[in-house]
């Protein structure tokens, strides 16, 4: 087992002391730690041995890896790549084939219970043949590496809630990591993909504090997924003013009005895109004129279309939604009520005209039964009382 500190490891790989401290500063503020946060990170990296990382890919598109290598700060990117690319990541590592598998296996054995497993992608439970890596079924491989890991980091919507593979009707029965593995600490870093800096923040936190950050009910780190896009969006004043772009190329869209009417899912989505932004902090979808699609929420693909606030209802025709069906049912109800009124006037004519003799036959049976029951109950109680009274008086004698 390697006991070299993370800092020494980085120094050997050509990272200067100065750059290292810059990294600690950036990460400390990113994670919203106290002023001492950067110090804590530096301290941990200088004293703790490097924790190995195994990065597994299952049913996915590799957008999480793509996002990860685009961290806003080049030093952050360099440092974290040095930290994670070493042991096993079949996309990023230099080794390949049997050699790569051997490295992964060696890490798993040497660092039993001490390495971090990072997963990208969902696990198809429908059939083992749907996804295999080096000839091994995704499910078996996940279980093998999860067994001996310390923490599991689930990257992106695929690993956190199944993403598009898991969308109805989910043909491969794709399931997120936490549905396949139990008894391990799992963090879901949601998004399709997650923001690079969020990924960097989570890795740094885990390496520094040797535990997972505070999670919400979906196992998402609260620091980054505590607020909605909608609550941090710079177009929010337009929303409150009811100023909505009606199409992507109208005058209102040019003015930068809110995209709610065009199906923006910001009001449904917990993520920090509007704060941290994307691609070196350049922009985020809404700033670029397109609504949020809700990629950090479970099952967001089941609430399509992208460009309508009210989701479609599958099974009622692709174009249907709650309002269309509700309006149709309302029409049917009004029609039914009108028909009922007409038939009433025919069928109940004599009753309405008052030319029908009073007929209480429908009520009589019920009333008789109820009254009989009550009378019996009363009599029983009275008899009991009498018995008791006479019993008492006999005792008195």
């Amino acid at each position, binding site marked *: 087992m390697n006991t070299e500190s993370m800092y020494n490891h980085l120094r050997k790989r050509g990272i200067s002391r100065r750059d290292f401290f810059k990294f600690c500063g950036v990460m400390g503020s990113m994670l919203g730690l106290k002023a001492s946060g950067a110090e804590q990170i530096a301290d941990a990296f200088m004293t703790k041995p490097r924790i190995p990382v195994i990065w597994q890919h299952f049913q996915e598109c590799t957008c999480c890896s793509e996002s990860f290598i685009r961290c806003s700060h080049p030093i952050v990117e360099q440092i974290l790549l040095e930290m994670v690319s070493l042991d096993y990541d079949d996309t990023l590592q230099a080794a390949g084939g049997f050699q790569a598998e051997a490295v992964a296996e060696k890490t798993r054995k040497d660092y039993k219970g001490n390495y971090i497993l990072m997963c990208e992608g969902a696990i198809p439970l429908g059939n083992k043949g749907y996804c295999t890596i080096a000839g091994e079924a995704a499910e078996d491989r996940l279980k093998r590496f999860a067994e001996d890991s310390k923490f599991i980091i689930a990257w992106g919507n695929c690993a956190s809630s199944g993403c598009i593979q898991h969308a109805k009707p989910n043909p491969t029965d794709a399931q997120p990591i936490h549905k396949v593995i139990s008894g391990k600490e799992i963090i879901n870093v949601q998004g399709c993909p997650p923001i690079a800096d969020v990924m960097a923040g989570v890795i740094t936190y885990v390496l520094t504090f040797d535990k997972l950050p505070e999670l919400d009910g979906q196992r998402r780190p609260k620091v980054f997924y505590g607020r909605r896009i909608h609550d941090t969006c710079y177009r929010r004043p337009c929303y409150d003013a009811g100023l909505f772009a009606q199409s992507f190329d109208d005058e209102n869209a040019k003015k930068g009005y809110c995209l709610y009417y065009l199906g923006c899912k910001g009001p*449904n989505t917990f993520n920090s895109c509007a704060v941290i932004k994307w691609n070196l902090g350049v922009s985020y979808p809404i700033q670029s004129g397109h609504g949020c699609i809700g990629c950090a929420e479970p099952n967001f693909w089941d609430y399509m279309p992208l460009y309508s606030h009210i989701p479609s209802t599958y099974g009622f025709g692709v174009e249907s939604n709650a309002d269309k069906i*509700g309006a149709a049912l309302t029409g049917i109800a009004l029609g039914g009520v009108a028909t*009922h009124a007409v038939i009433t006037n025919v*069928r109940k004519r004599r009753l309405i005209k008052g030319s029908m003799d009073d*007929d*209480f036959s429908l009520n009589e049976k019920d009333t008789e039964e*109820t009254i009989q029951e009550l009378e019996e109950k009363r009599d029983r109680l009275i008899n009991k009382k009498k018995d008791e009274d006479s019993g008492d008086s006999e005792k008195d004698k």
Partner: protein
Amino acid sequence: MIQKDKNLREIYVWQLPVRVFHWVNAFVITILCITGFIIGDPPAIQHATAPSHNYWFGIVRFVHFFAAMVFIVNYLVRIYWLFAGNSFSVLRNYYPLTKKQWRGIKETLKVDVLLITKNPIYDIGHNPLAATTYGGLFIIMILQIITGAMMFSVQSNAFWAPAMQDLLIRFNGFFPIRSLHHWLMWAFVLFAIVHIYLVFYHDYIEKNGIASSMIGGWKFIAQPIAEDYEKEQALRKDVEHLEKEKHNKK
């Protein structure tokens, strides 16, 4: 329209809290449906050029939330009255657990919905079918309050907000909860159409003053039915009294 030749008697059915609940509830649900529909599908009202000159969507949402709070408090009063009210308004009316209620539902279906039987069936309080739909509506109201409060939690500092936000996230967040909340709006619309129609239907054919009963509290009931009812009430009182005596002795 009361028949002069009929022998009708007035009976006090709906106590004040039930009547107040009813009209506050009906009014507030109307407001919630209208504002909710606008929130879900906003019309293009764009007479300002900059957000600083306008706030109409915010006001619609505010009205929705204000009405929601009135709706909740009003409902809490009714829940109390489900236990404290008279025999027509207590909980057992609203859930068909007895054979008698099931028979009543079957008969009401035949008499009033399918119009098969020509002679009427008389009820002093709710008929068992109507009461069951109110029971259903009471449950939908609870669901609407919970889903609404879950969504409201993200914009609230109230003491209950963190717990509700946690619940929201555990139930897979806004997407499913918002959808459910939206669908349930249509349940209220459909209920109101059928309910209002049936109130006037009963008023029209039975001439028992049911429509105004929710305002004044009184209904006009045929003499024999009223007598049976009074007999039943007297018996119930006797039985209750005897049971209490027995209990006290112990």
